[in-house]
């Protein structure tokens, strides 16, 4: 097919799109993951492939990038049908993917991670080739400069597992643009980045666009999608449910298409009657991380704690969970001083802690939902001869799963078979089995899609309603505004301001994170 000039005349057909997806279908066993999806991608545009976890967007990406084949349907690149696309062939066509996990090789150097792919592509995947080291280095230097990373020798030879997350993310992007990319797919690229780094990334995206490269974001972050603009392709349950210009529709519209539900992002918190005093933290310190943190919490109260990464908020959470103990000050629960030097102390005192990184700190991914839930109460479930009672633990797990609306194919399925939001609910459910007086949630909705977020918020509200004290540590400000009674802002290890959440504007809270003069004036 000949590419046609558009020339601005309306009656002419537009130029052939770079990529066209036609009626793609994919089955996994009996499950139809994709039920005939079609869309096209034109050079120099920004696209957002949106949808909740499990809607089929990851499968679609894998098909476009050659990692999986489709069962039916067509893929057209520059108007020509391609069949049997392999990862190397997709790369050769200029389709580059930045995976959510970055897909960097941890034991190889920065230069190798960036430059090897290109050599693999130029040999069509054949491995019996000499390595062109100068070329690899030149490629890496060019790509690093494009994403704003240093390109000196020491950095080029650094192993990628020695670098911070944000740098790894940029290296993954550098690899994608190292060769002549025509479409860069970015799978949830901003999850690991701070605000500043996101801005930097957006700068890179602008430059790509200016060069005529199409960028496809896979995301469920509505705010980012709105700020970037472009076209949204929205999927639900294996089908494309909508395609529209991001500018012309509201966030509520997008969220409705993604979830099929009307979600309200208004305050979940209404007038609540607070119980008696539950927790009193007095001048808690851990040298080098935070100092003189005082906080009190009543039964049924929800307190949010926020701050930048280095504010000490994470360390404070870990101290209250007994993971990394404080070295000064005191913690009083229901009037009695408690000492938390190991996680078991916190559990014994009735403090449940849901960690931030549920994959590496929280869940036993390959084990069943049941085993993950009953872990803290194995003692209680033991029968006379010390063996865990299978029937009782199953009943407890089933009750918890039911209670928290975990969508699963049964409590014996491994946790890794669940979506992020459901995994998070299993993790929360685990701590509910100890019937905690105080629940500490660290980033409760990181990597969780919109619909699941809503469910998790409702759970949190219900728990507080039942008289549990809740502390939410999060950098998702709307989340804190929606869910808490008070919000504590930390900066450089100290509490700089405590706000009443009711009626608080997001920008006031946001400014308090970085500017302590404003925080003091408020």
């Amino acid at each position: 097919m000949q590419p046609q000039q558009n020339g601005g005349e309306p009656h002419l057909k537009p130029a052939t799109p770079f990529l066209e997806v036609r009626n793609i279908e994919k089955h996994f066993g009996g499950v139809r993951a994709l039920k005939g999806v079609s869309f096209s991608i034109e050079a120099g545009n920004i696209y957002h492939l949106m949808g909740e976890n499990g809607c089929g967007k990851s499968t679609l990406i894998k098909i476009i990038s050659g990692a999986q084949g489709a069962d039916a349907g067509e893929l057209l690149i520059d108007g020509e049908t391609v069949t049997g696309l392999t990862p190397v062939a997709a790369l050769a066509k200029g389709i580059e993917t930045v995976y959510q996990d970055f897909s960097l090789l941890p034991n190889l150097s920065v230069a190798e991670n960036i430059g090897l792919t290109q050599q693999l592509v130029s040999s069509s995947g054949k491995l019996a080739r000499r390595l062109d080291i100068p070329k690899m280095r030149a490629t890496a230097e060019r790509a690093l400069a494009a994403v704003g990373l240093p390109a000196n020798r020491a950095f080029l030879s650094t192993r990628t597992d020695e670098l911070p997350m944000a740098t790894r993310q940029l290296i993954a992007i550098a690899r994608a643009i190292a060769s002549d990319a025509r479409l860069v797919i970015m799978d949830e690229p901003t999850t690991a980045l701070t605000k500043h780094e996101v801005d930097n990334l957006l700068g890179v995206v602008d430059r790509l666009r200016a060069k005529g490269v199409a960028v496809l974001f896979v995301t469920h972050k509505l705010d980012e999608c709105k700020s970037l603009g472009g076209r949204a392709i929205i999927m639900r349950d294996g089908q494309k449910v909508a395609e529209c210009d991001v500018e012309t529709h509201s966030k509520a519209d997008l969220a409705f298409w993604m979830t099929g539900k009307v979600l309200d992002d208004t305050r979940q918190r209404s007038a609540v009657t607070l119980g008696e005093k539950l927790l009193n933290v007095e001048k808690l310190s851990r040298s080098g991380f935070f100092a003189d943190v005082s906080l009190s919490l009543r039964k049924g109260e929800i307190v949010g704690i926020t701050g930048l990464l280095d504010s000490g908020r994470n360390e404070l959470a870990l101290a209250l969970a007994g993971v990394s103990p404080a070295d000064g000050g005191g913690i009083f629960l229901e009037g009695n001083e408690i000492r938390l030097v190991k996680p078991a102390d916190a559990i014994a005192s009735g403090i449940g802690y849901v960690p931030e990184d549920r994959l590496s700190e929280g869940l036993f991914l390959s084990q069943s939902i049941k085993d993950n839930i009953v872990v803290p109460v194995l003692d209680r479930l033991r029968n006379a001869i010390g063996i865990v009672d299978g029937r009782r633990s199953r009943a407890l797990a089933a009750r918890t799963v039911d209670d928290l609306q975990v969508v699963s194919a049964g409590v014996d399925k491994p946790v890794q078979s669940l979506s992020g939001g459901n995994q998070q609910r299993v993790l929360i459910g685990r701590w509910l089995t100890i019937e905690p007086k105080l629940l500490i949630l660290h980033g409760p909705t990181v990597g969780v899609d919109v619909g699941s977020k809503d469910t998790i918020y409702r759970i949190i509200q219900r728990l507080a309603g039942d008289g549990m004290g809740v502390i939410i540590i999060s950098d998702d400000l709307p989340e804190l505004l929606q869910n808490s009674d008070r919000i504590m802002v930390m900066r450089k290890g100290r509490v700089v301001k405590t706000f009443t959440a009711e009626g608080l504007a997001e920008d006031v809270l946001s400014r308090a994170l970085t500017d302590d003069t404003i925080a003091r004036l408020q």
Partner: protein
Amino acid sequence: MTETTFSSAASRSESPGATAGLWAWLMRHPPAFTLILIVAVSLIVGAINTDFWQVSNLFDILRASVVRGLFALGVLVVLASGGIDVSFTAIAAFVMYAVTMLVVNVVPGMPIVAILALGALGGACFGALNGVLVHVLKAPSLIVTIGTQYVIRSFLLTFVGTALFMNIPAAMDAFGKLALFTHHSANGSTSTLPAFVLILAVASLVTWWILERTLIGRAVYAVGGNAGVAERLGYNLRTVRIFVFAYAGLLAGIAGIIHVSSNRLANPFDLAGAELEIIAAVVLGGARITGGSGSVIGTLLGVVLITLVSNVLILVGIPSTWQLVIVGIFIILAGAIFSIRGRQS
């Protein structure tokens, strides 16, 4: 932001204090640790018994390192790809015995180059079989190679033969005796450095070149680092797996021929049980058992260390039964140190 993220990464490699800096450097260069152990053992043994410093002793150590070294290079390549191979001794035993038998009975005049090539080819075929099984069955390579080790060894003993060949082919005999250097010491004794050490030298260079200077070499480390990611990036896992096991088999085949030539005896019961010692040598040389790391120089140092311990402790009156204690302690030490390294990174 970019500058700060980078400096935080780089600062880890810079030293706050001299000791800490040295320690950090050692963690990054595991072969240096192996070298320190070699020097320490040499100095201690040499101080107690000055016979250690004889040229003949050096020659002995080098001679004894050749077969181990060839095995170890093969193990290195498999370990770097994230696999493990314990069948190489069985492959070597099969190849050396079958080739010797073939040459003696069928083509007695076969030149050594052809014999070595035949050994290499036979070993590579067995190795490729390992690779195919590991890839197709998606089974752990440890289990697969334990299986093939048993099958190959018992096939050898059942169907090929159990009788020793005392009279090995002339070409192999000559090759085993061929001297690179001959040293006449003051007391009139003569010691020789066999020419087959050159084969280890060549094999080391070739292995280094493949691992560091070719795409397949980088692919081996890529797959060892994270096989799932490597596959997604377009590295062909089947090619890599077949290559690493075939290469290990090839080196094992050559090692078998050298073993026979050097001992002037083809014994099908030989080499059994040496697997762990070789894997230990490679791990002592800095390769992680979990894959994705290891170097040729480290592997060679690991082999020298193991050979040194098993050859020279007798000089200081440590009975041979005790040598394994020392080797064991070194392995635990290396394991502990590299596990600390793993936790830091």
